């Protein structure tokens, strides 16, 4: 079995059951299947062949889901792109993976596919005239189209930030994705009666669970567009209205729904599982949520960088009031093996700390444009402690990577992007606050009396970095604080606030 078979099989078994409800339209499995075939025909006409990369730059919608499935039917590779990202950032990704086609709107296509990208084909869903209009699109044949594909073929690429601002495409094969999807379906005991909320954007790996576990069991997924993803009252009423049974998001969003959306004033009777990942859930807030919903609702803490997808998990079975540390990230899952390696290269024993290493079926094929990763163990860069019961607890990072609302950020990448600016002599970036209050703050030493405005700095970031790496605040200082060995002293930076 490969990834695209999940929709195809559910469409055969239950063509009239709802598959996905988006802000644009709702699709049954039968309709999603037809639409995916139409996308495949349209893309094949544009010259897309096996192994070609196809970008999907659309607002979150049922049509975008169908486009992803259409790409898979050609045994091509889909690349979900942030709908809120600026054109300059999208261009670097189109170039990096040498895209064959881009599915987007006419206006966006015109902005991005210029100059040396004119050869990239554009499938516009909203254009005028022949070929591109939605009605013309619906006139395409819906006959089945399935290019031969193998389990090890790449299914999709998720872009994260790479060193010095160059985008890094994490390639996931059918095998990688299915190992996780099958594990998650079993662990959740997911069925066709489930109703999944999809909060995470498609370019963020959390969305793989919402979409594909639902497809696997013939359940429905309800899409939350990015623009509405932090509007707490909307989120809580959405949960009630759509009678959601499985919710998966970063902890910040759950906290927001508790604080401002009235999540704890209601009793969401349909909800049966809450999953969270991407950052530690502050225990004080987890207690509040668990007191209200647990243990009737199952709680899961999932862990894994994009490169390995979810490789460990912990189910919160009970949460004694005295528990005052973050809950563990748990034990290996998805068929993976994990261990903690100490500085000296030996295995951490219970009570000891080390770097978490992962090997197994969910570990990526590799980064696009780099040699295949092979079966090598993947070093996560995360420090963990092994507990007596075999669970791991997240301790911190080995490097300067930080997390803001579940997105990982290399501070050095933000600094490199800003150092490009002619008016900036030196810069150091740090994070203040946690959870929803987390802000990226830049400390700038200017070059020659010209102080760049926050507007300019944001623009500089937006053109070079993913959206979640755009600086929120800028402070001008005369010199960066240094440690005794000359390194930038990040801990001393907040003193300059």
């Amino acid at each position, binding site marked *: 079995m490969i990834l695209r078979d999940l929709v195809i099989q559910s469409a055969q078994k239950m063509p009239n059951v709802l598959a996905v409800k988006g802000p644009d339209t709702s699709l049954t499995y039968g309709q999603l299947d037809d639409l995916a075939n139409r996308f495949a025909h349209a893309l094949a006409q544009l010259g897309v062949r096996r192994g070609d990369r196809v970008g999907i730059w659309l*607002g979150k919608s049922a049509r975008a889901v169908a486009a992803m499935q259409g790409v898979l039917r050609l045994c091509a590779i889909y690349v979900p792109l942030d709908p*809120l990202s600026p*054109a300059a950032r999208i261009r670097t990704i189109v170039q990096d993976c040498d895209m064959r086609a881009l599915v987007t709107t006419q206006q966006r296509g015109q902005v991005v596919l210029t100059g040396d990208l004119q050869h990239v084909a554009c499938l516009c869903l909203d254009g005028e005239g022949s070929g591109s209009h939605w009605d013309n699109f619906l006139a395409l044949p819906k006959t089945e189209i399935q290019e031969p594909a193998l389990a090890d073929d790449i299914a999709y690429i998720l872009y994260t930030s790479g060193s010095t601002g160059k985008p890094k495409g994490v390639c996931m094969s059918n095998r990688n994705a299915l190992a996780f999807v099958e594990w998650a379906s079993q662990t959740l005991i997911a069925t066709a009666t489930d109703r999944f909320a999809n909060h995470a954007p498609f370019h963020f790996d959390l969305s793989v669970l919402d979409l594909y576990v639902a497809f696997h069991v013939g359940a429905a997924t309800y899409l939350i*567009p*990015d*623009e509405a993803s932090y509007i707490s009252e909307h989120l809580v009423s959405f949960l009630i209205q759509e009678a959601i049974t499985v919710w998966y998001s970063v902890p910040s969003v759950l906290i927001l729904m508790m604080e401002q959306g009235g999540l704890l004033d209601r009793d969401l009777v349909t909800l049966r599982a809450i999953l969270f990942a991407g950052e530690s859930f502050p225990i004080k807030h987890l207690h509040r949520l668990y007191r209200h919903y647990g243990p009737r609702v199952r709680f899961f803490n999932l862990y894994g960088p994009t490169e390995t997808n979810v490789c460990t998990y912990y189910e919160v079975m009970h949460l004694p009031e005295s528990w005052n540390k973050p809950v563990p990230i748990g034990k290996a899952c998805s068929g993976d093996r994990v261990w903690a390696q100490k500085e000296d290269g030996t295995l951490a024993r219970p009570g000891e700390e080390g770097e978490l290493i992962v090997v197994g079926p969910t570990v990526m094929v590799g980064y696009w444009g780099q040699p295949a990763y092979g079966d090598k163990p993947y070093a996560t860069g995360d420090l963990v402690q092994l507990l007596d019961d075999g669970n791991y607890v997240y301790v911190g990072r080995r490097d300067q990577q930080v997390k803001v609302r579940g997105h990982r950020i290399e501070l050095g990448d933000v600094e490199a992007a800003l150092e490009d600016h002619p008016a900036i002599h030196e810069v150091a970036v740090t994070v203040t606050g946690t959870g929803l209050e987390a802000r990226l703050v830049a400390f700038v030493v200017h070059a020659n009396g010209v102080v760049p*405005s926050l507007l300019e700095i*944001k623009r500089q970031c937006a053109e070079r970095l993913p959206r979640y790496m755009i600086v929120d605040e800028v402070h001008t200082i005369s010199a960066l604080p240094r440690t005794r060995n000359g390194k930038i002293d990040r801990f001393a930076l907040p003193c300059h606030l």
Partner: protein
Amino acid sequence: MQRDAVIEQLRSYIAQDVLSGKDIGLDEMTPLLEWGIINSLEIVKLLSFIRKQFAVDISTDKLVVDSFTSISAIADLVLEQIPAGVINCER
């Protein structure tokens, strides 16, 4: 005139609350998403500002990327929700 007033209030809110009040060169056509000025968290704060300032609620089906591309686009969104001549432009 009314449209100008809405634009000016939105502009001054974004300049002060999002861009720390130090910024010059922000106008109604500045590409807010392209230049990384507005993100999904800022949209939430902006909606609550609009609710307070103009006493209008933006319905969730209007919450699409295109509505936030510029101050001008946001002003259109606000003006659609209020009957002509009713707006209170006091600061």
